[in-house]
């Protein structure tokens, strides 16, 4: 089940949270290997605890939210935000493939001089 939910598209969506995780990993690596201030349990333990707790918490929340969102995407129709029970709303492609490109074409044709009035 988990592998079905976390498919390529979902992983791609989650990359946004992998970046801060990566930054934290780099800092942790620097502090471990460069060790500029030496190791002292009273200071080093909270130092690593703060960073690791963030990595773990963010990882867990990303997993849970990814599972909830991607799971619901596979169970029910997905609509644009604020349109879930709007009369006549059309479902959208949850992974947005072509969504924005389609929109772009559409809006290029829609753009009109009226915009400049506002």
């Amino acid at each position, binding site marked *: 089940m988990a592998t079905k939910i976390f498919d390529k598209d979902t992983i791609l969506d989650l990359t946004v949270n992998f970046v801060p995780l990566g*930054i934290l990993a780099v800092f942790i690596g620097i502090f471990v290997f460069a060790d500029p201030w030496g190791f002292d349990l009273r200071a080093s333990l909270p130092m690593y605890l703060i960073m690791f707790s963030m990595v773990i918490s*963010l990882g867990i929340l990303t997993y849970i939210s990814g599972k909830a969102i991607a799971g*619901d995407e596979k169970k*029910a129709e997905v609509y644009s935000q604020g349109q879930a029970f709007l009369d006549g709303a059309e479902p959208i492609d949850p992974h947005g493939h072509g969504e924005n490109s389609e929109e772009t074409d559409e*809006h290029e044709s829609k753009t009109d001089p009226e915009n400049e009035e506002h």
Partner: protein
Amino acid sequence: MEINAQIALTVFMGVLLVAVAAWLTRIEDWRSYSSTAGGVVSQGERSEYIEQEKPAGLIRWLTTVDHKDIGILYGIYGLTAFAVGGLMVVLMRVELATPSTTLVGPALYNSLMTSHGITMLFLFGTPIIAAFSNYLIPLIIGADDMAFPRINAIAFWLLPPSALMIWAGFFAGPLGLGFEAPQTAWTLYTPLSTGSAGGSLDPAGGAGIDLMLLGLHLSGVAATMGAINFIATIFTQRDENVTWANLDIFSWTILTQSGLILFAFPLLGSALLMLLADRNFGTSFFLADGGNLLWQHLFWFFGHPEVYILVLPMMGIVSYVLPRFAGRKLFGFKFVVYSTLAIGVLSFGVWAHHMFATGMDPRLRASFMAVSMAIAIPSAVKTFNWITTLWNGRIRLTTPMLFCIGFVSNFIIGGVTGVFLASIPVDLVLHDTYYVVGHFHYIVMGAIAFAGFAGIYYWFPLVTGRMYQATLGKAHFWLSFIGTNITFFAMILLGYGGMPRRYATYLPQFTSLNVIATVGAMILFVGQIIFVWNLVNSWYAGKRVESGDPWDLKRDGVHTVEWQWFDRKIETAITDGGEEEQNAVTDGGEPIDKSENN
């Protein structure tokens, strides 16, 4: 023997509680307290107009549990606090037009500064967000009302006494009550706030500080009750079509904000009570060695998430409103959702970047720098998403859209200046200078307040059934945008020059930039007068909106459910014999050539 007595007491208390519960079930039919009582429900296919008669006049507002009424109450409260906090800072900026004290003495300046900060953060920022969320979230997610409507009402009614306690010192002096307004800054750093000569005798405000602590605690209790309510509402009261994949971005940000409140505010409450105990009951939580650092750690463990408590929902409003006037869906919707959650988590690992200059261990300091750098990413992701949403969109520069774009612009400056402060070496140079004041005002005024204005203008027709005056709205935007940038950019430059913050006086070499900042503040002030006039005047006399789609959102396929609710409300009102007025107008909606309502 002693244990037996304790067991007997416990059993007695248990029996007493059961007896009270049984008595309460006999005297009241609790099932009659339906969450829909007094509310209007018209959502989706289950549309049903079930508004019950509400009492008239003041009694309605004092007894209401309708989420929309409570939202309006929060809005009025928040804007009143915004006016009070704004007038305080106008006085301060006038004083700062000259290097020496002229208009306001140092003690009053300190009091104004303290109350300005607390008023804007606790009495304006949090309540104005609650105004939007109370009114809109049940409508957007298809809930009948909040999960706990009466808790919702209680949470609001805790706020007026909270404000009175926070401001009490200003009344106490003239009334001769023997204490003054607090002069501790909103951070309440010890030992200044512990009161070296006893709680009621210290020079920083005396009992005024105690009252402020109690008022803050009360506002924290209110915020926590509201947060629990929103979490319960979003988790349990959603329409069946509103899956997690369909939850809108504003609700996501409110859910995240509520989580932050749930973890942050109780800790602030504990710290405030500890400080009260130190001041009045002879304890020494913050008087012992390390006590001052302990206060800072406790305060900022709350204080930094508080920044995100304020900014996340406002980002949600921008993410919701901006695409409506770009004529397209929010670019990278899920990126924005996951970024919101990431900010929520990481906000609890950055608090000590406010304390880089305290002399704490460099290892500890470095870890907070690392997390502070990491948290910049999700904020930047959102910014790029907003900009990309605008790309090739059918942009309509209505007043709400102008404020959204102003938000993005100011947020970039406020955010980038913040990233520099996250770096320890830079922070040590700029710490406690006006650079910090400029940075966080770009966020608090330039971003948070701007998003609030965007939301107010966008949903003004929905709440009042009338349209504001578009020309005045745009004047408000331009004066606010120019005023904000003049004032706070001058402060950033003052900080580079080394001017320390929190003083009523300064060295003459800083005069020019301070005069510029004061001129900027006056421009802002004029803008806000126009805003208040526009709001009040349009609420009473603005032309009625007849269309359920005053922003012409259907044209671009970006119509949303709260406007559908509004549409049905209008239809129902007309069916009920409501008056049909002509000349419905919009600001950028339809008809285009009637967009100004002057």
